């Protein structure tokens, strides 16, 4: 997937969001660290372009909500959660780059509920690579990418990686 494809996919997803959310004033976007933040911001920019509505974008770090806390060799670095608006009674759009086991999304929903009780939570992902371990599905999917469990799916975005692309790689070493 290259830059043009990513741009078109985000356009399509934005249209789908607008179709489903009639009351845009109640919509807020929460991006998951790290790449979900930038996807969320791009979608907010597209909504502003199309509808002239400013959608607030927050950042959620799920490290403190992980379910494998006691099994990791080294701790994950905890980063900041920055959601400067109330989420209670809002329609929250969670945004992440890749949907895999579903465990990240479980953690994100737990984290979100600690901040308030949203009216609804919707999930947007750029890539759905399958292999779910929990009963979770996305409301908006950029592309379904069948993979083997061993493969790595890397989403690279201009804001962090200097380029827009999606790569499937074989794991190296080990």
């Amino acid at each position, binding site marked *: 997937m290259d830059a043009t494809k990513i741009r078109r996919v985000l356009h399509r997803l934005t249209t789908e969001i607008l179709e489903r959310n009639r009351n845009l004033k109640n919509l807020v976007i929460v991006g998951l660290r790290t790449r979900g933040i930038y996807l969320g911001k791009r979608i907010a920019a597209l909504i502003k372009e199309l509808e002239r509505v400013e959608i607030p974008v927050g950042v959620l770090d799920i490290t403190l909500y992980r379910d494998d806390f006691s099994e990791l060799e080294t701790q*994950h670095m905890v980063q900041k959660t920055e959601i400067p608006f109330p989420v209670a009674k809002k329609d929250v759009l969670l945004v992440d780059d890749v949907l895999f086991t579903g465990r990240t999304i479980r953690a994100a929903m737990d984290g979100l509920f600690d901040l308030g009780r949203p009216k609804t939570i919707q999930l947007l992902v750029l890539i759905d690579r399958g292999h779910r371990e929990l009963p979770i599905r996305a409301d908006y999917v950029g592309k379904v990418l069948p993979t083997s469990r061993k493969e790595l799916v890397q989403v690279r975005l201009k804001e962090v990686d200097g380029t827009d692309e999606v790569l499937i790689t074989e794991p190296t070493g080990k």
Partner: protein
Amino acid sequence: MSPEFSPQFRHYHLLGIEELDAAEIMTILDTAASMAEISEREIKKVPTLRGKTVVNLFFEPSTRTRSSFELAAKRLSADIVNFSLQASSVVKGESLKDTVRNLEAMATDALVVRHSCSGAPHYIASFCRSHVINAGDGSHEHPTQALLDAFTIRQFKKRFKGLKVAIVGDILHSRVARSNLYLLRKLGAEVVLCGPPSLVPSEFSFWGAKIEYKLEEALAGADVIMMLRIQRERQKANFFPSVREYRNLYCLTEARFKLAKKDAIIMHPGPINRGIEIDSGLADSVQSVILKQVANGIAVRMAVLYLLLGGKEREAAD
């Protein structure tokens, strides 16, 4: 390895600042910065340390540090037991080792230790399976206090390199001064220790501190002023003629404060003796960050608990 991992912190215990390097200190401060937001939420709690048991093992009185550790553990969902000297079997003659062994038999994960003997936490760490956190040992170290001081300094000054930090008071008996000296030197700040010659041993210059016996000299151009309490409970001899003389020479007054930089901040690890080491008005002034230190203490202790208790249980080897 992805940058979200933190290989910079691999200690099993937190016994002192002396053992940490600059990168490890920054890892703790960065983690604390992320933890700070939790205390501002309506529901001040995350589930991270569910099922972990932390014991506050305090052989010396403390209100701030003990309750700060207690809140930090609770905000991370750990269970915490408070153990205080008066209510313990120590008064019935139980040895320190037996006390710790008995507590550990109740499947504890971390012991937060305060003791009047320097090195007590190190001794406990030598035979104990739990993670040991030094919450102040005698006149030796008080690492989490130095870390919260550093966190507060970074909040207001955004840097450490080139900062002039004056630490004033009873340096000889102060574990806060020692831990702060180690930490600030590791991060590149200039440290001036000041107080009566009997309470400021010249050996401290060995660790890179400047020694100054006149308060006015120490304050000149300072960015951070850290006032310490006169620890009368630790002074077995007379280190200065009278409290009045100490006050006259070493009390931070409005007039003396003007010698420091315009934007200097005033810190104090507490408890304050108003009117002895600091004028009451200054302690409550806008440039005083004393209460900010207390608030930051929780975030820093959450970070320490997270970094020590996170990850697979390793062998207690390091």
